[in-house]
């Protein structure tokens, strides 16, 4: 089992297949989160990501370990970007490879859902006239 856990300045989406590719795998499932132009019909100029890096890496490692416990996976990647990202830029990529496709699909969904719940990374939405920390307030 190979895990790749990283916080980076820029995500290179092209590299993830080589990282997940595996002779024992028949399927690779990858999710890429990107910056969307509009939130609630307001135009987003950029997203700014900040992290508590030592803790974020630990939490990402835990998520990978939980996925490996739950499913029969050969390789797992969790990679998140920090800094300012413009529209359509990738901000997160998670993926898994497994012998059969059920496992990699379910694991990939679990990876991104859990990352969003537990990993200490914060996103500020920058609009033309204001900035908002996402999910901070009810």
């Amino acid at each position: 089992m190979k895990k790749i856990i990283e916080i980076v300045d820029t995500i290179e989406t092209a590299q993830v297949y080589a990282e997940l590719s595996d002779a024992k795998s028949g399927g690779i499932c990858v999710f890429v989160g990107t910056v969307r132009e509009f939130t609630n019909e307001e135009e987003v100029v950029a997203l700014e990501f900040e992290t508590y890096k030592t803790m974020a890496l630990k939490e990402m490692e835990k998520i990978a370990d939980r996925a490996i416990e739950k499913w029969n996976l050969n390789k797992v990647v969790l990679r998140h970007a920090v800094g300012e990202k413009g529209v359509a830029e990738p901000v997160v990529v998670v993926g898994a490879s497994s012998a059969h496709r059920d496992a990699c699909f379910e694991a990939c969904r679990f990876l991104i859902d859990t990352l969003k719940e537990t990993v200490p990374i914060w996103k500020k939405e920058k609009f033309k006239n204001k900035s908002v920390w996402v999910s901070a307030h009810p």
Partner: protein
Amino acid sequence: MNVLFFGIAKDIVGNSELIFSEELNKPRTVAALKKQLVDSYPEFSKLNALAVAVNSEYATDDVTLNGSEEIAIIPPVSGG
């Protein structure tokens, strides 16, 4: 006792780190730390949630603090 602040928590206290230097001021538990923060900065009470990490692990309210830990205030996360 040093406390790290991230995201909106950093904006609320106006700093990425605060030092609780007075013996009297040092909270002895996670719950006491949270209470002290909310008392000093009422904006914290308006957040969706407020978590504390001790040595880069989520800590429940009853965890005790001796001041040598790495302590961080974790506002609602929004990665991904």
